[in-house]
Structures are given as C-alpha cells and as structure tokens.
C-alpha cells in the first residue's frame, strides 16, 4: 500500500503544480513509512517540505496555503500526535468555508498512519477516526488496500474540502495488489459491498476489513451462511444508503472497528441502521471493537483489537438470536 500511496502523490504532483507535500521527515528521508519516498528528489524542497517538528504549525500553515489556493498534503507522523493540531482541524480547517460563507475553502489533505498490529509503542497504535468523523466540515477517509488507497487519495487531493486520510500501518507493507498505472479515483462518501450475502451484514473499514472478510469466509465454509461485507472507505460523510440497503436485505448487522467501542463510529452506524432499517431487523445490532481502555501496549494488543474469531462469535450470536 505504501507504493500505491506514493504513486498517487507522485501523479497528482505531476498533474498539478499546486499540490505540495509537507510534514516531518517527508523530504530527504521519504517519510518514516516511506510513503513520500523520492518525491523530494523529483519535486525539490519547496514542494516536498521537511518541516520543523510542530504538528499545529504543519496543519496551520497548510491551512494558510490552502486558503491561498494551493493543495497541501500534510503528513502527521502518527495519528497519536495529531491532538497537538486538533484545534487547527476543528477550529479552522472544518470551518473556513462556513465562516466566510463560501468565500474561502480549505482543499487540504492530512495523511496519518493509524492502528495497531505493528508492535508499536503508545501513541503509535491507536485508532482515532471518531474524533474527526464528529466534526462537521471534515471528511474522514480510511482505505483498506493499495488500489482503493491510491484512488481515494487521488480523490481526496482533488476534493475542495479538508480530508483526514487514515492509513493503517498494518496494511502499509502487508497489503499487496495490482494497481493500474493509469490514474483512477473513487468517490468520497461511498462505501463498497465487497462480498454479497443475504444472511447478515458485516461492516468494517481499514485493517478490520480483512478481519470481517475472514469471518465471512468461515461463516460460508463452516456455517453455510452467506454474509455481506461492506467496506466503508469513508467514515464521514457516512454512506448510510449502502448500509441501510444491505441490512434491509439481511436483517442482521455486525460492525467491526479497532477504536474503543463507546461513542465510536459503530454507534453512529448502529443508530443509522435503527433509523433506516428498523422494521427489517431480526436481531440487535452488534459491535465488535476495542475495549474502552486508553491503551494496552502491544503485549496485550491481540486481545484488544478485534480478530476474526470475535467477529465470528458476534455474527453467530446475531444469526441465532
């Protein structure tokens, strides 16, 4: 997935001189995960900016650049550090369009690695998408693999509004697939049904998509039950139509995410299902998520982050309700 993201950045920078990359170590070093590898060599230090180490100013100055008409793509080295710039997202990136009644807008992308599974320390392994999804004016995008990562990043850069773009660290190198050279985009705000089924809907995103798919495969093999799997891709604005359409058909839903359970994306998805598909429901909606603890350290991560077995157990309970 690292190469797919790099391809998206390179092609957008070739296409549009207004696209800049800015962040800590994104230049000569190519980023700590190598997503911006070699961009500095091609486009130089004025377009691939090795910034001082200060998240609020990385995002704050990028907002200024975006207000001027450039299209900065910031990298925050780990999503756990983004609270030091959260005020710039909430107070400003999300609001300039509203505050100026359309006179200014902020075409900004902020990329951040998130999620566990890579034996990383505190602040290097959490999932914080719910904070951004709650802010009107922001878009929150999470790809699940190389091809949709490339297409979504392209769309995010071309989008006129600020997009928070989460990249799951466990997918950076583990997730491999063919990505066409020819640029392709995916619409933001649109989920994908990646597996069709009629008995139950599993809803996931990021690295949890693989977990949901694995559970769906086991259900098909061992239980002879066909689960439908939805890859959200965009957390906000949420594609309620696809979710509600699927659950109207299946009558059952399990939502999977890596973030703590309470007040997470799963709660909003569950409420949307209640509003849109209540009469079709055959069982309570289940959420499989991390426990509501601040962090656990990677020695305990496996029991905290949802795995296929937990999703399977939740699906079976739902199916037998």
């Amino acid at each position: 997935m690292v190469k797919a993201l790099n391809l998206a950045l390179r092609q957008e920078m070739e296409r549009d001189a207004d696209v800049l990359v800015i962040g800590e170590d994104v230049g000569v070093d190519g980023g700590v995960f190598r997503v911006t590898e070699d961009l500095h060599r091609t486009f130089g230090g004025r377009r691939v900016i090795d910034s001082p180490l200060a998240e609020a100013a990385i995002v704050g100055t990028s907002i200024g650049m975006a207000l001027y008409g450039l299209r900065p793509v910031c990298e925050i080295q780990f999503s756990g550090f983004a609270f030091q710039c959260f005020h710039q997202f909430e107070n400003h990136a999300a609001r300039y369009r509203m505050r100026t009644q359309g006179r200014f807008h902020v075409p900004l992308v902020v990329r951040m690695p998130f999620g566990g599974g890579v034996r990383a320390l505190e602040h290097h392994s959490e999932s914080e998408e719910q904070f951004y999804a709650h802010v009107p004016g922001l878009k929150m995008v999470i790809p699940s693999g190389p091809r949709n990562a490339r297409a979504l990043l392209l769309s995010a850069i071309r989008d006129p509004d600020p997009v928070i773009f989460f990249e799951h660290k466990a997918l950076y190198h583990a997730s491999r697939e063919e990505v066409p050279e020819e640029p392709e985009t995916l619409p933001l705000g649109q989920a994908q049904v990646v597996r069709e089924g009629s008995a139950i809907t599993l809803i996931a995103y990021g690295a949890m998509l693989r977990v949901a798919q694995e559970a769906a495969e086991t259900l098909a093999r061992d239980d002879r039950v066909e689960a439908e799997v939805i890859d959200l891709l965009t957390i906000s604005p949420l594609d309620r139509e696809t979710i509600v359409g699927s659950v109207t058909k299946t009558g059952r839903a399990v939502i999977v995410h890596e973030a703590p359970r309470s007040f997470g994306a799963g709660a909003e998805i569950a409420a949307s299902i209640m509003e849109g598909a209540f009469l079709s429901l055959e069982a309570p909606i289940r959420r499989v998520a991390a426990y509501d603890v601040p962090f656990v350290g990677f020695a305990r991560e496996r029991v905290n982050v949802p795995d296929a077995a937990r999703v399977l157990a939740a699906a079976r309970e739902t199916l037998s309700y």
Partner: protein
Amino acid sequence: MPRTRLEPRFQVEYLSILDSEGNLDAALEPDLPDADLKRLYHWMVLARRLDERMVRLQRQGRIGTFAPIKGQEASQLGTVACLSPTDWMVPSFRETAAMIWRGWPIEKLLLFFSGHLEGGQPAPDQHDLPITIPVATQIPHAVGLAYAAQYRGDDAVVMTYFGDGATSEGDFHEALNFAGVWHVPVVFVCQNNQWAISVPLKKQTHSRTIAEKAHAYGFPGIQVDGNDVLAVYAAAREAVERARRGDGPTLIECVTYRLGVHTTADDPTKYRSAEEVAEWERKDPLTRFTAYLQKRNLLEEGLEDRVDAEIAEAVARFEALPPADALTMFDHVYAELPPHLRAQRESLAQRLRDGAPAGEETRPASPPMRGQRTTDR
C-alpha cells in the same frame, strides 16, 4: 573544552517619534504626504467613534458581545496602512480599525457581532481572512499564506495581528519558528495592550520585551510606541518593505493600552486601577495625532459630524437587513451537500413550514453581564 560566552548577536530597538507631550523627533518623522496624513486621521476618528457607538449598540441590545479597540487605533491603522490591496491581512478579534481600513463595510462588522455568519464573508476581491477567535491560532495561517505567495511568485506580503496574551500560545511560537525557517514575507503585529482580560503583561511573560522573542526565531523584532501612529507607520513600512524584497519576517510589538473593556462582557474595574487607566488616557493616540495635525494645519472642520453620519447610515443599513435565512446554515459546510445534510435541511424546512420560529424575531437585549452596570469603561 572551554566554557565561553556567546556574544548575543541581536539588539532590540524601540521607536518613538511623536510622544504624548507632543514632542516630535523630526529626523525620524516619516515622509507622509498631507493627503495620507489626513486619510489616516479620518480612519482613526472613524474607528474611535464607531467603537464607542458599538459599545452603546451592545448596551442597548442591538448587537451582541464584541471586543472594543479604544486606545489601539494607532497600532492598527499605522500598520495596516502599509499594505496594498493585494497584500493579505489576517486579524484576530480586536481589529475593527484595521478591518474597516481594509474595506470591511461597517454593517458587515455589525452583522458579525450580531451572530450573523454573513458578517464574516470577505468580498470576492478582498485578501483578508475573517475574524479569528481562538487566540493565536490564525498566526500559522498567515505564515502559510506567505509561503503560498512566495511559492507562486506573487508579490504579496501578509500581515497578521494578535495581542500580548497570544505570545504565550504554542501557535505563536510555532508560527514564528516556521516563518523564520522558511524566510517568508510576513509581518507579525503584536498589539501589546498590557492586559489579556485580567492578566497583566508581567504575568504573561518574563521577557523584557515581546519584540525580542523574534530573535529566538532568527529575524528582527522591534518595539514601537503603539500610541504613536507615526512610529507605528515607520516601523511597519520598513517591515513590509523588508518582506517584499525577500528579506523575511519581522515582529512588531506595538506598546499600547486597551482603554476599554476586554469584551462587553468584562468588568476591568475588578483587576486594574482607575489611576492606571487615567495615565494611559493621557497617552491617547488620537489626542496626540490631533495635536500634530493641528500644528501642521491639516485638521478638517466637521470631520466628527461626517464620520458620525457615516456610522449612522451604516447602522441604519444594518438594521434594515432582512433576518437570517435559517436554511442557509447548510450551504457552506461542504462544497456539495451530502445526503445526511440534505435530509437535515429538508427536516428543518418542514419545521419552518409548520411554523417554527426561523430565528430571533426581535433582537433581545443581552442578559446583564458581570459588572455591566457598575462600570462605564
């Protein structure tokens, strides 16, 4: 290894040209044509009269809470007057004088302080950001604008405003650091008005000046008498020229005083003495500039009346504006309305069709604030 002394390679200048006693340093007097002096004076009087009028409008419940500028007119007008229309101005929330100079219509400011989003909309050709309320958070935006201008090869300078309290915020330090590293065309204007609500400067920083903080980031800082419009203008012109010719940022500390309340919800008698205020009233920037122009025989008859009429017309235009259209709250969240907002908009439209009140029917008086009746400042 020796332990040696690093010679400090910086100095901080203080600039004063016209003092509160009316003494003029003719050698430093900026070379300003009479017409420009008269123009500056016109805007200074307008800013003062408007500020006083706005306090009255707030007390009458005709606008909401706002932050008066009384005493800071020279700091704002002396700096903003150095910008051209294609330069950028990035205000905080106490820049009424700078904003009207930059072409913000008075009725738009009144709209803003009446809770109308329309008041925050710059004109299509206006290179100004709107009022920013969270302290210091606009400073990085100014640096980003300056980077973008430099990147595009545009001949634009960015000027941003903030107060002494803002210099304690991380965003101030981060922004100055980025500006120094990037060497971008930005002028930082600190209006050191001595008080961040109730906290005096000595509790805000242990630095002798705010100007010297610039040196930590590798560019010049200058302290000026912020109530001396000639000194402010001279320092700002130098800083803007430096930025324009590619020599990087400058921090200007305007030493001034907030003669009025922090906002109309504040009671300064709780935290500062009447003697202190009286002392600063003697240094009033307007009195000083009036005396200077009088000596040069540049005062115009009836200026106050003309300015008051201008304000009255703007207030009349403001009060004749139609009430807020509630449904437009959905118009500028995103470029395109996503489905959930379309549904919410439709739901509100239905409520309005069913007779729900669309907004404030009349503009009710704000509830009395702490100390509001016990102070006239």
